[in-house]
């Protein structure tokens, strides 16, 4: 890979020289440095290196219908919440693309997603330490009016190398109204996609498929304020490379998601259901870990940004789950009794996710099991009901208030032995108040509380009740200062009733942003869109610099 990268740099420099006058170069830079000191009270370990650093620089050159770019990444060594296989420096991402007469050609790295991602998603999420960019060739073609096709062939990135599997994919979408020039008020968009992964067979006992196929169909109907989206996906047999009969599963996988939304000014409602069974696609059947996952089951629970609301987050289970969600948005009109001068926004959200009856589908020489399609009374994984009130009181004061009740199956979602922690129910309240002192000076305060209980007797005690407070002073446009404390006052173990204090200080000017912080992090689960990672506890100083041009 290094030789290829070097070639790209030379290529880049040369186009740069020739194109200085009529092309554009943009980029962005990010540096994340953290020191780690030992803190036995929170089980934080010191790093041998004392400080660790993650950085990257993106450079993209664009001229007319041509663009090329690269990303230099540096992990010296990777922050502790990253997989330690991210190690060293390199240019793992470089591409060139052009389009002409409806055809777009990309060579090198690219990110791609088919539909909602049920059968394929190649993406990066720095917060999770995930980057499964493809490396290969991608073609996009506008076949007819309203009909577009994408195809690609490539291997997917894992850390600084590529996984074993070779992916071939094709996705087509047709906007019926555009193609048939319909005048109908209802818009129909159909899509279909197919993915195939090749990996050499080498099992001496079981016959493994070398080419594993997945396909999906989707439908989007839009009429005025109504919007329906549905997608069904299927995966053929994809057993692991084992010689234990119990471990080799020939069952197919499937998933569907279906949502109906109605919205008009000041009101919106969405109902959604999804189900996945044995629907995990890996870039190498022999491996495990999030770096190898190549598809995505969108999460059904509301993504929470407030710390205590996200303390017990929901991780999507591609191997088997069934869930529903209802989301209602309503804005109380301004001038009314509850609406006040500026109106009041309300958001009620409910989600509930449970396992499949009897578990994931299994097929081998001795067992042939398929779970019921709709069974809502199975082991609960996660549920969340929350109400959010957002209100601007006057020119100086605005607030956001959230109350939630969440149920979290810690044993299942964190892979514990059943009975170790059981299921945790927590009631959470958040008040986020913003006060504008004078022009350019704003004070924002958060107070959060979480009251937890274990719903069944378990062999271990969970952490108990928490309270959190935050104050943030902003002098726009250049400065901000934040202090926050998370306090585990309700821990059953008195020695663990700890304060997690963090202070953060930042300076912004133009395209540059600098921030320095110090504090303690609690060990926990961090998720983005239902994909999660374990964050180890830490104590230390952090420096973050972002910049773009």
């Amino acid at each position, binding site marked *: 890979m290094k030789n290829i990268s070097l070639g790209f740099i030379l290529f880049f420099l040369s186009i740069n020289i020739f194109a200085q006058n009529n092309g554009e170069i943009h980029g962005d830079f990010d540096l994340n440095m953290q020191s780690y000191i030992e803190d036995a009270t929170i089980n934080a370990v010191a790093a041998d290196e004392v400080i660790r650093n993650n950085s990257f620089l993106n450079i993209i050159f664009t001229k007319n219908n041509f663009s090329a770019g690269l990303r230099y990444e540096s992990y010296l060594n990777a922050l502790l919440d990253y997989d330690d296989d991210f190690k060293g420096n390199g240019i793992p991402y470089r591409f060139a693309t052009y389009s002409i007469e409806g055809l777009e050609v990309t060579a090198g790295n690219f990110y791609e997603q088919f539909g909602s991602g049920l059968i394929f998603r190649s993406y990066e999420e720095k917060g999770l330490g995930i980057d499964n960019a493809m490396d290969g060739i991608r073609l996009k*073609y506008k076949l007819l009016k309203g009909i577009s096709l994408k195809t690609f062939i490539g291997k997917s990135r894992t850390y600084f190398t590529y996984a074993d599997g070779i992916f071939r994919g094709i996705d087509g979408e047709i906007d019926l109204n555009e193609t048939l020039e319909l005048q109908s008020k209802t818009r129909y968009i159909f899509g279909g996609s197919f993915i195939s992964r090749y990996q050499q067979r080498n099992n001496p006992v079981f*016959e493994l498929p070398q080419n594993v196929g997945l396909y999906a169909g989707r439908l989007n109907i839009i009429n005025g304020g109504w919007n329906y989206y549905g997608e069904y996906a299927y995966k053929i047999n994809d057993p692991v*490379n084992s010689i234990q*009969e119990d471990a080799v599963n*020939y069952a197919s996988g499937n998933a569907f998601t279906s949502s109906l939304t109605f919205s008009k000014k000041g009101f919106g409602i969405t109902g959604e259901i999804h189900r996945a069974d044995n629907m995990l696609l890996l870039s190498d059947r022999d491996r495990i870990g999030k770096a190898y996952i190549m598809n995505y089951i969108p999460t059904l629970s509301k993504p929470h940004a407030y710390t205590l609301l996200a303390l017990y987050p929901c991780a999507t289970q591609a191997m088997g789950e069934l869930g529903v969600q209802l989301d209602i948005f309503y804005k109380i009109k301004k001038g009314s009794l509850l609406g006040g001068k500026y109106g009041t926004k309300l958001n009620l959200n409910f989600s509930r996710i449970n396992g499949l009856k009897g578990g994931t589908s299994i097929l081998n020489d001795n067992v042939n099991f398929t779970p019921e399609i709709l069974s809502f009374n199975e082991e609960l994984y996660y549920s969340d009901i929350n109400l959010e009130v957002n209100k601007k009181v006057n020119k100086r004061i605005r607030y956001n208030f959230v109350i939630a009740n969440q149920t979290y199956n810690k044993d299942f979602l964190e892979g514990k032995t059943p009975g170790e922690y059981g299921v945790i129910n927590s009631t959470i309240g958040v008040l986020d108040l913003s006060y504008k002192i004078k022009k350019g000076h704003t004070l924002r305060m958060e107070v959060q509380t979480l009251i937890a209980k274990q719903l069944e007797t378990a062999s271990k005690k969970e952490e108990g009740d928490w309270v959190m407070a935050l104050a943030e002073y902003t002098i726009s446009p250049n400065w901000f200062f934040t202090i926050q404390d998370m306090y585990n006052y309700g821990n059953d173990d008195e020695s663990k009733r700890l304060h997690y204090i963090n202070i953060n200080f930042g300076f912004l000017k133009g395209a540059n942003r600098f921030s320095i912080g110090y504090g303690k992090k609690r060990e926990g689960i961090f998720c983005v869109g239902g994909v999660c990672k374990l964050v180890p506890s830490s104590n230390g100083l952090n420096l973050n610099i972002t910049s773009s041009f």
Partner: protein
Amino acid sequence: MKKIIYSLFLLSIISSCEVIEGPYMTGNGGGVDTNSNQYVKNILIEDFTGHLCQNCPDAARELEAIHDLYGSQIIGLALHVGSTFARPYPLSQPKFTYDFRTKWGEELDNFFNISDAGLPKGMINRIDYPGDHRKNKGQWLASVQQELDKEVVFGLNINSSFDGNNSIIDISTDALKDISGDYKLVVCLTENEITNWQKDGVIEDENYIHNHVLRSLITSAWGDDVSLSTNISNGESYTHNYSVNLADLENFNIDYSNNTLFQGNGESGGWNQNNISILAYIYDNSNYEILQVEYASLATN
């Protein structure tokens, strides 16, 4: 024309899909032919594990399945390591109080950085170091097959005498080709059939049988020189002699658990000498790859 070409291309992609119909088990593997050479290539699977690790028994079963397929060419070694999955519960608790960890297991774990990446993990003859040496159980089979194809460079013979407590162990190494490099011999003791607690999926199994558990190293973790010369000629033979006292080794582990290991409780004894085996391997000091491994019972050898 462009559209036709494009459509053909798409069709060819869609046809790449294989649905397998049962029966799924198509062979028994049949093992590897033993040729006329006296020695065959043996393979060491170092299974890094812990009694609190609920996915670890699956890896142990994969090791057993690979052993059943290829027979005595596959030699297992279970190293209980780390403070997350291998730490014992306090003696006041009714279960998981045994401390399977050893000084050498921890040393190897730290050096090869295994438990930090999550257990279970294994090394197959320590190939692909550094970087890809830590292998999930799903990778073991393919790595074993790759190793079985390699040439056998050294032959190992283990001879021992045992009087109930003291043992003299002789390891002889035969070079099977001209070779130059820095090669090390490591000798350790393992124990089979230890019945003790193990988390196994959703079960806490009181009667789990722990096999080929690392008990002690007779050499250091990095071994002794096979030969004093870096040039080894085909047909040369080297002998290493060791004398051990089982009770001393057992007491060493108890002290080490008590005094050094994280949350150690000294519950590391109760060795059954009838189940103790000698395991010897030779590795290449330039890349840590294990070139040969041999295994013999201590008491009945």
